[in-house]
């Protein structure tokens, strides 16, 4: 039986960041990844400055990119609305739909940037604990409050008012073009079992704006995982599927792998998702009923399927969103409410070499799906907006995550000090030596590596 200081479960961005930070602190770290290969799919999400700085990623080949246009919205009557990185050029594009909306675009972008900046400040630190009575934490809370307040009265009010709103309401206050509103609102329902008229979707739209410049409302893509995997330090074992986390005397003691091998370590950091970790990997009985109930109640409904279209040759296309109107998205969601696959799904397609990777929503995990027909439907929906697509298609694959593989919806009741469950946002669990990181923990999905850094700091006692 081999022994290390820390076992990290999962070689995603947060797992690898944590492993790297811990290894640099002199700990022996092993990362266990169930997949046989790391693959080279891009990592979606803002890579916050503290991660880049701490791991000196800038000199290690980190490439973070946002395509330009960052989104091309398929218009209902054919044609596309290109949303560019340049605010003025985007306004020119919008003018074809509405002169009034074009006028408002720059001010809208500035206001949203201001609000996302406040979120960013919350995301690069452990979640604030509003119930704390520790002086240090109170000081930090005060400073956080001031940092938001420093942005001005309007910004503070804006933020508090906007977070609980629906994306449809927020965007409706600014714009009249349904196509523009829907293209932006689609980012507010991503991976969420809610429609654009549901409260909290304005927050999710702003969440996906974090780290991006004014006028870009989708997260960037990077090669973060590749860069981290190439760094010396932690030992990464591929094809190592953890079957159980060993707990002895209420403390984490190591893990058991599929096949029976056991690895020992006094600290286990799991990025497998809060529910998977605490309900499937830990023997039941170690958690008190209150905590177990809170974990059981984490909402993590799978609503997104990935459709990978293999193409003959490279496709040069900006990301395309098929969400022509708020009503279209809302109706797609209605189907999911009653457990059905959306008759007309919301799509967002990203070209990646000779592949077109499409996120399709809403596809509830429990709903029956005729995959071949669905793949064909996705191609049909995209073909009018991507020249020559149909002729290039060589194969279509539909991947649906299992229900337990999703880490947790980004609803207002499941963020900050409520993520993964109320009072346990500092990466620790009631089992000593067992910690959590990954999208199911603060600051959530689409913020690459940050939870790993914060969890590693918690382990190091920093």
């Amino acid at each position, binding site marked *: 039986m081999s022994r290390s200081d820390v076992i990290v479960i999962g070689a995603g961005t947060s797992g690898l960041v944590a492993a790297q930070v811990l290894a640099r602190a002199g700990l022996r770290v092993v990362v266990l990844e169930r997949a046989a290969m790391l693959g080279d799919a891009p990592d979606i999400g803002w890579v916050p400055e503290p991660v880049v700085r701490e791991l000196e990623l800038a000199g290690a080949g980190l490439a973070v990119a946002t395509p330009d246009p960052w989104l091309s919205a398929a218009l209902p009557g054919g044609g596309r609305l290109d949303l560019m990185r340049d605010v003025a050029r985007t306004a020119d594009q919008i003018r074809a739909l509405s002169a009034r909306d074009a006028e408002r675009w720059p001010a809208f972008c500035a206001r949203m940037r201001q609000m996302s900046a406040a979120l960013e400040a919350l995301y690069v630190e452990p979640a604030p604990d*509003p*119930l704390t*009575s520790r002086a240090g934490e109170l000081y930090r809370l005060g400073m956080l409050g001031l940092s938001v*307040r420093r942005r001005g*009265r309007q910004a*503070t*009010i804006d933020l*508090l*008012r*906007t977070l*609980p*709103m629906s994306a449809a*309401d927020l965007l409706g*206050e600014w714009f009249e073009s349904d196509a523009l509103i829907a293209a932006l609102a689609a980012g507010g329902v991503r991976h969420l079992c*809610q429609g654009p*008229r*549901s*409260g*909290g979707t304005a927050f999710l739209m702003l969440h996906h704006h974090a780290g991006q410049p004014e006028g870009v409302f989708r997260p960037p893509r990077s090669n973060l995982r590749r860069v981290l995997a190439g760094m010396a330090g932690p030992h990464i074992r591929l094809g190592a599927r953890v079957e159980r986390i060993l707990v002895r005397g209420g403390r984490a003691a190591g893990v058991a792998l599929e096949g029976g091998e056991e690895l020992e370590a006094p600290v286990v950091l799991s990025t497998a998702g809060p529910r998977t970790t605490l309900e499937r990997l830990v023997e039941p009985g170690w958690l008190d009923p*209150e905590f177990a*109930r809170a974990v059981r*109640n984490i*909402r993590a409904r799978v609503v997104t399927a990935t459709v990978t279209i293999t193409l003959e040759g490279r496709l040069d296309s900006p990301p395309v969103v098929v969400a022509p109107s708020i*009503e279209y998205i*809302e109706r797609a969601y*209605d189907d999911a*409410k*009653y457990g059905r696959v959306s008759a007309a799904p919301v799509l967002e397609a990203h070209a990646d070499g000779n592949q077109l990777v499409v996120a399709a929503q809403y596809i509830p995990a429990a709903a029956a799906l005729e995959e071949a027909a669905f793949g064909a439907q996705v191609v049909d929906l995209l073909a009018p907006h991507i020249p020559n697509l149909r002729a290039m298609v060589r194969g279509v694959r539909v991947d649906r995550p299992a229900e337990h593989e999703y880490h947790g919806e980004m*609803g*207002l*009741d499941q963020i900050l000090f*409520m993520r993964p469950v*109320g*009072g346990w946002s500092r990466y620790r669990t009631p089992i000593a030596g067992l910690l959590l990181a990954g999208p199911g923990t603060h600051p959530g999905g689409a913020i690459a590596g940050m939870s790993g850094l914060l969890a590693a700091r918690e382990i190091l006692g920093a």
Partner: protein
Amino acid sequence: MAGRYDAIVIGGGHNGLVNAAYLARAGRRVLVLERRPRVGGAAVTEEIFPGFKFSMFSYVVSLLRPEIIRDLDLPAHGLHILPLESSVTPMPNGDYLGAWADHDQTRLEIARHSPRDAEAYDEYGRLMHHMAHAVKPILGMLPPDPASLSPRDLAGLLKLGRHFRSLGAERFHALFKLMTMSSADFLDEWFETDVLKATKSASGIIGTFLGPRSPGTAYVLLHHYMGELDGVFRAWGFAKGGTGAVSEAIAAAARGFGAEIRTDAAVTHVLTAGGRVTGVALESGEEIAAGTVVSSLDPRRTFLELVDAADLPAAFADDIRRFTFRGSSAKVNLALGALPSFTCMPGEGPHLRGAISISPSMAYVERAYDDAKYGAFSRRPYMDIVFPSMIDPGMAPPGKHVMSIFVQYAPYHLTGGWNDQQREALGDAVITALEEFAPNIRSCIEGRQVLTPADIERITGLSEGNIFQGELALHQLFFLRPAPGWARFRTPVGRYYQCGSGTHPGGGIMGASGRLAALAVLADGA
């Protein structure tokens, strides 16, 4: 000061009357001006068909603040609350789910559907009780402005922070969830019985343009849980003589303190000079002077109709313009020759002395919302039904009855707009949906009044027919109600105040806004 009055209150709804009563009680010379021939606003009793009296709009009392009942001595002025003792939800299979005044009986009833839910019910009840207590002090508080650095606001924020801390972690987290979740998700954490969740979630959608799966509805659930009657939580009741009797009692109390009340007196304009109010102008052309004016109308009317735009800062006017109303409820009032028989409980019985909730499943209620989302009224609406004449026989001729049906959803912004045909179509849909559970209903009806949100707006003046004077959504509550920076009943116009449900804490026959606004007026030394 010149003139006969210290203060004029615009609008004689319950909040306006409460406000006037408190001002008069403090020795101010107060005049209430009501546009309609009677006071009450949406809390009125009217004889719509000969011998049949209806609580035309608002129909149950529970949120009226006990301190108001005490301070104004309302029982002495004729307020008499008759408890509503049960709630029954008929199911399509002929079964039902009942909730009774007796806790153990309700528990047994739930156990009939699910023993697990019966277990959870006690714990759920305790939690909601604690949550209601946790929110209560906030309702009675002047909302501090979180963006202000003034000592008063900081002190308010500190007080709020201390209050939350005093709850302890578990309850604070539960409260946070209630503030941000959908009622469906919240109830899913507790119960498995669909009809139980559907019935409970229905109180989270009342007056909102949201479905039970929309985040924000759990808060409305709690808002309705705060019903407090004689100190007993979660007790709903009727006022003897209908809801109008509540208004009459408050009006009598106000008069008792010396307030003057004029009906048929519609205010068209608030007069100002040098950024301060000087009085009001009536539709008749008459002008009445007063150094203080309090509007109990909703924020849109208070600021965008009664006051010149030039008197308001542009940013504030924008905030009021984006305050949303989106009325979603209708009311059907029926005069009955005989009582309907429900399939789940045939004939007469104690269930007719309580509420009947048409909310047979979560999907039923959610589908009702789906229709409204796309601009139609619900083909099969959620309904909350009571028979006031069963408890207060004076409401109908001997042997006959009145039936009050609260209907949701009927969107104010109906595709194509409301007209006589659409109104009757809504009435027909309501009766048809009811027939599923009470097959003989049609033959019992002697008279039918259908009030769409457009009718509610026309008659009561409530913008877009919103029964809360503005949506009770998280982004329109507390320090944001009705607009950031102006949630303490004052306005950008000097000595002009607001006291309607469109201000904190808003909604229901609560009276809290009227009272808190009066305290604000008095604090300013009027």
